[in-house]
């Protein structure tokens, strides 16, 4: 049961991911990314992280990506034109990527190859209650700092997007 579930959504995620980087139009990429996020959220559910899954949908799919689409609409960004080039990327890109993926995959296989199995419902620690408990006891300071970070981000965004810029 779990395995089919996983294969299904992993496939969706990978396909959407590929389409993110292959689509010519930003909106298409954005929607593909939403697809990736949605499937990842489902995988979170399968991993027993129900709160994180919902947060994933609300924050990423519901807010961040909407912001992206909003900006794309605002700038009416069309399909990108092939102007300018980075010979670095052209030259080293593919081999470097393949090398990285290879090494990482090898790492994972050699370290976590037999690190155990994941069955739905074998981890119940992901409920909103437990996450909130951990967040407000052990990780309180990071939490507060994050709030400050968000405040700063708000100010920065406002200052940057002001009409009378420059």
């Amino acid at each position: 049961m779990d395995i089919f579930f996983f294969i299904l959504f992993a496939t969706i995620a990978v396909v959407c991911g590929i389409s993110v980087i292959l689509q010519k139009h930003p909106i298409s990429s954005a929607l593909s990314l939403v697809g990736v996020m949605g499937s990842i959220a489902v995988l979170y559910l399968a991993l027993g992280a129900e709160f994180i899954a919902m947060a994933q949908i609300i924050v990423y799919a519901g807010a961040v990506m909407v912001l992206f689409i909003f900006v794309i609409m605002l700038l009416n960004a069309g399909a990108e034109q092939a102007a300018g080039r980075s010979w670095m990327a052209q030259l080293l890109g593919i081999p470097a990527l393949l090398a990285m993926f290879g090494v990482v995959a090898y790492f994972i296989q050699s370290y976590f190859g037999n690190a155990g199995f994941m069955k739905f419902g074998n981890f119940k620690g992901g409920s909103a209650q437990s996450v909130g408990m951990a967040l407000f006891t052990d990780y309180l300071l990071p939490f507060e700092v994050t709030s400050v970070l968000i405040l700063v981000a708000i100010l920065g965004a406002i200052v940057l997007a002001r009409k009378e810029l420059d």
Partner: protein
Amino acid sequence: MEFLIITVIKLALIAFVLLTALAYLQWVERKVIAHVQVRMGPYRVGPHGLLQPLADVVKLITKEGVMPADVNRFFYLLAPFLAVMMALISISVIPFGGTIEVFGYRTNLELADLNVGLLFILAVSSMGVYGVALAGWSSNNKYSLLGGLRSSAQMISYELPMSLAIASPLLMAGSLSLREIVNSQAGFQLGFIPKWAVFSGPFPQIFAFIIFMIAAFAETNRIPFDLPEAENELVAGFHVEYSSMTFAAFFMAEYANMVTVCSVATILFLGGWHPLFPMPYSNFVAPLILAAAGALCFWHGMNPARPMDKYTLPVFGVVFLGLAGLMMFPPLVPALMPVFWFLAKTGFLLFVFIWIRATLPRFRYDQLMRFAWKFLFPAALLNLLVTGFLVALFA
């Protein structure tokens, strides 16, 4: 296995009821607005225009679906289905009543009982914006683009006060599962005041309720916040270019959203399916109302205002009396009462939606935004703080 069968049955039932309800909700809206404006509203198709929705559906299906020139075809077609899908999904976690037993099978009156149900609803409703935004962008029309931009900005802005307003009753319920939230509101204090979130608790959530309803109007793009489809500025906003079924999809989405938010408001603030009155009396409320309605129909049938009423109204009267009798039928009472109360409350909220649409003018866009950020958001925040403080104090 039987779990699957039961689920499928419930699915079919809810889908049928809901879609019909959506169709007839539009009829109700037209009727209510007509009577507010002292008109008669739909009257020709069937008795009192009761068949009007069917006529509309036929019309919309048979109409030609126009595809404007050089639009992004895929997104143009994707948008309405996205919208209606997101609107309908969230119904699936809403409990209409308690646990019932049919032919020995016990089941809950809902499709799925997530223990993060509320977050799920929030998530799905936040996805709803994609439909509108994509529609506006993909139909390659400046009016619809503006509509899409407005709707995305507006929905993101009103998500915040809505979420904050939702958070405060959660503090009192202490759970994210809708069913448990409703159960936490059971009972009465002083014997007659129901323990609904709006009334009870260390801090009555009346403010949260109001804030939630206002935000709900914005979330569903209803008047007075229907900027994305403001006729006199943007022709028809994001669905200018849409016609036939795609257009119908947007309409369905809007009404489905209304139903969803009203149900959520009922569950969170109005105690779900819990009756307004203590147990023994509450069972008689429903039959009495229906009987009264039947009697009213008969009386109007006696001295009709219009010729056809002589025949139609008595029929309605008979139907109402029959329903009243059904409500009295002992074995069905425990199953029907909660549903009745739930539907009554939701229906009342829906009526409020329609009523306000008939009453209020439309906001200006900057007013809309200023209202959201400078009044609604701080108010919700304050309410949440006070609630949290009091809950911590009395818990």
